[in-house]
């Protein structure tokens, strides 16, 4: 496995906070976890009516799903297994090189 399989089960969430309350709640939820912000680059830059993409470690994915559902915040999972995506990209590269 690439990168020692460190991303197995990690997910990328896309979240849509619709108002100030949801922005604040989201900052609270994500601020207490070791999430990797993809867009925007940090919790402080989250605004209403913009999309938030975060990479969540496998141990935290269930908790994030639960909290977002509990708070009725609109979200989806963009990448369901990050390791799989990384392997796919590199597998494709290897096959091209062989060819």
């Amino acid at each position, binding site marked *: 496995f*690439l*990168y020692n399989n*460190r*991303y197995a089960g990690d997910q*990328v969430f*896309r979240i849509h906070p619709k108002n100030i309350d949801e922005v604040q709640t989201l900052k609270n939820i994500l601020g207490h976890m070791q999430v*990797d*912000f*993809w*867009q*925007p*680059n*940090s919790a*402080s*830059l989250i*605004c209403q009516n913009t*999309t938030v*993409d975060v*990479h969540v470690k496998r141990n935290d994915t269930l908790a994030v799903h639960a909290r977002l559902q509990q708070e009725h915040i609109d979200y989806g999972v*963009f*990448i369901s297994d*990050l390791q799989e*995506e*990384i392997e796919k*990209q590199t597998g*494709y*590269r290897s096959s*091209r*090189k062989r060819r």
Partner: protein
Amino acid sequence: SEFQYDYEVYHSLEEIQSWMFEINRTQPNLVDMFSIGKSYEGRPLYVLQIGKRSRHQKKAVWIDCGVHAREWIGPAFCQWFVKEAIGSYQQDSVMRRLLNQLSFYIMPVFNVDGYHFSWTTDRFWRKTRSKNHRFHCRGVDANRNWKVKWCAQGASSHPCDDTYCGPFPESEPEVKAVAKFLRKHKKRIKAYISIHAYAQMLLYPYSYKYATIPNFDCVESAARSAVTALYSAYGLKYRYGPASTTLYVSSGSSIDWAYKNGIPYTFAFELRDTGYFGFLLPESLISPTCGETTRAVKAIASGVLKKC
């Protein structure tokens, strides 16, 4: 040779540096290669100068890629642009005019340590790799470390954050080296372009405040031409405008610093996509992404040669 180089795959730092040496060796009429300093971990910071040699001082355009390590499409674009510039010099009259009248300074990998780390250890690493004396967290955001409204809104003073501004402005040797080079050549450099991902946007100053830049009309017009040229390739619509209002407020950015230091056209591209793949943009999209971006950069460079 460079003709067998595969521009449609992502390359490691070692491969990119070998490619730079090869391009420099095989294209002596159009290419010059030099180092502007060393990274925190001691790697050379290479720049390619592309353009027809001239006795008089030509206007210049600076392009940097790979400021943020995980944005792999950036270095892929810089390599693509060099290939296009050299390869189309004979056939494309626009490119020929650009290379005859301008010098392009191209830095394919700005954050060399971070890029290497993203290949070997952490695919999603963003910052440089400098050590902090008080915290175990490493690295500084190389796009928050410039001496312009340093470490204010949109930057973090905490070393463990991804937007950490560093202990002081230009604390990172990579930023310091580029700033020194740009300061030295600022009379000639008319455009500064920094390549990032992802959001599909073309941004210009200011990043740190909502005010309008003095030469807004010229810059806005150049941005409009660039996104129109980009659209003409594959029909992709880029948003464009001041970084503060189009993306978000951030301080200590390179475009604000370059603008403040007298470079009239400064832009940051946020390349594909809008999040479907995010930083894992498939290699099959390198060609369309770089092709359309090349058109946009050519439009900006053409704008530099016009009076506004």
